[in-house]
């Protein structure tokens, strides 16, 4: 459904250039949940931002159902693809009530029955009507992230890009939000592309994943590969080992 072919992203600062993504390819099937993992600075979030037009694409193609995504992105594209950001404290406007956060996309895209849709969106993410006219500073981190999910889903997209949706949250809240995302995917038949550095989260959520290092795709794994630690490259093995916890390397046997 969503296909990324040899994607390159280059940021230019004056004469300086940073090649954040240097040729990444993957295909995401309809209804699939696809993971992108890698350490900090490997360019995994940049891939998501490039797909939705927030980072400059300098090479390669991104296609949706076989059709090239128009650049700049059109409002119609955003009806099909939405994104949830990493930090729920930064992704909600501090002076807008939840009501205006949720009604704005509806009015931009010209949806009808706005009151009903807002009420339904709040119910779906497990927040009641009581939250509708609150400000973000009156909500906890987990509640904010639920609002961010509701905002992304209120346009009824087919694909949801998730940029480390739980890394800014507490462990206990993480599970809640992940379960929410799982449930919404099952109910609505959504397609997810999820970025995370947390292999446990990825193996819980995603059927397939790609490992990135320094802007390059290192290898593609399935969930079964990940769980049984079947990795082909050194880098992935190192990553798997690191995720298992800290061990002293020079420990005497």
């Amino acid at each position: 459904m969503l296909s990324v072919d040899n994607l390159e992203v280059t940021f230019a600062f004056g004469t300086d250039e940073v090649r954040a993504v240097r040729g990444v390819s993957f295909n995401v099937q309809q209804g699939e949940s696809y993971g992108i993992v890698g350490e900090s600075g490997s360019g995994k979030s940049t891939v998501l931002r490039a797909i939705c037009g927030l980072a400059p694409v300098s090479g390669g193609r991104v296609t949706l159902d076989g059709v090239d995504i128009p650049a700049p992105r059109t409002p119609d594209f955003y009806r099909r693809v939405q994104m949830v950001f990493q930090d729920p404290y930064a992704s909600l406007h501090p002076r807008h009530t939840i009501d205006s956060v949720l009604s704005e996309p509806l009015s931009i895209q010209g949806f009808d029955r706005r009151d009903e849709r807002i009420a339904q969106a709040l119910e779906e993410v497990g927040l009641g009507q009581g939250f509708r006219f609150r400000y973000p500073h009156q909500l906890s981190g987990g509640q904010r992230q639920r609002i961010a999910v509701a905002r992304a889903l209120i346009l009824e997209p087919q694909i949801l890009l998730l940029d480390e949706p739980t890394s800014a949250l507490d462990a206990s809240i993480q599970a809640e939000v992940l379960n929410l995302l799982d449930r919404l995917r099952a109910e609505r038949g959504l397609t997810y592309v999820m970025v995370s550095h947390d292999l446990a989260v990825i193996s819980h959520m995603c059927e397939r994943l790609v490992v990135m290092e320094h802007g390059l795709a290192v290898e593609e794994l399935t969930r079964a590969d990940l769980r049984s630690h079947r990795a082909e490259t050194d880098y992935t093995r190192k990553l798997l080992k690191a995720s298992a916890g800290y061990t002293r390397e020079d420990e005497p046997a």
Partner: protein
Amino acid sequence: MSMTREWLLSDQPVSRRQARLGQAYRTWLDFRTNGLAMFGFLIVLVLVLLAVFAPWLAPHDPLVGDLNTTRLLPPLTEGYWLGTDDQGRDILSRLIYGSRITLAVVALVAVIATPVGLLVGTTAGYFGGWVDTVLMRFTDIVLAFPKLILALAFVAALGPGIENAIIAISITAWPPYARLARAETLTIRNSDFIAATKLQGASSARIIWKHIVPLCMSSVIVRVTLDMAGIILTAAGLGFLGLGAQPPQPEWGAMIAGGRNFLVDYWWVATMPGLAIFTVSLGFNLLGDGLRDVLDPKRQK
């Protein structure tokens, strides 16, 4: 619908109106704890009330005096508590009517200069690149002129009068707001909530107007309030030089100019309007400081 304290402070508001009023009420509660700011607010409030009710409050006609009986009476004379000027006009009445001119100048300059500054600053900051360069270099050019001198040049070109003084002050007042709004915009434009709005297909105009401007608003309002004192002084300065309000209008600066000729013998004629300018400027400054404490977006509760 009732407007009780509980209703305003509810953390589960049930309508847009309740949420907005509740937020305003919290700001007000916060503001009320600041004694000096409340003092400034009172001064400004009194100024507004004086301007509104001038015809009922002023004991005498502000424009016509009796040259035979009431000329240059000292303060605390029965019926003329602040004395009279060389035309026999009651100074208190002139001050009360003068508050209308002062308030009109302040309000009109704020209404003209603030939107211009906000628009230029947020547009430059949001788009960046050559738009930013062109707009901000133009701002720099206007900023490089000395305020009073530029206002003088405009008034000289357009002809003396309070309307032209207002236009002239507005033209020189907007650049600092543009710079401030641009600086605020630069800190906001790359944040996730702006990116999220872009991802909904919002136009640039919508993002600037509904998302960036409300966040720049508070610091610009504070700056405008603090500038009010300067605006009043500039207006009074133009009036003093004879380029602002024209006689017999009771403009405070012009009143000082009128009293300057006999300052030693009849000190009150220039002193009373001077005190009025001083008090109102102080009031706006205190109010601005208080607003800064309450509205500062960086301050977390």
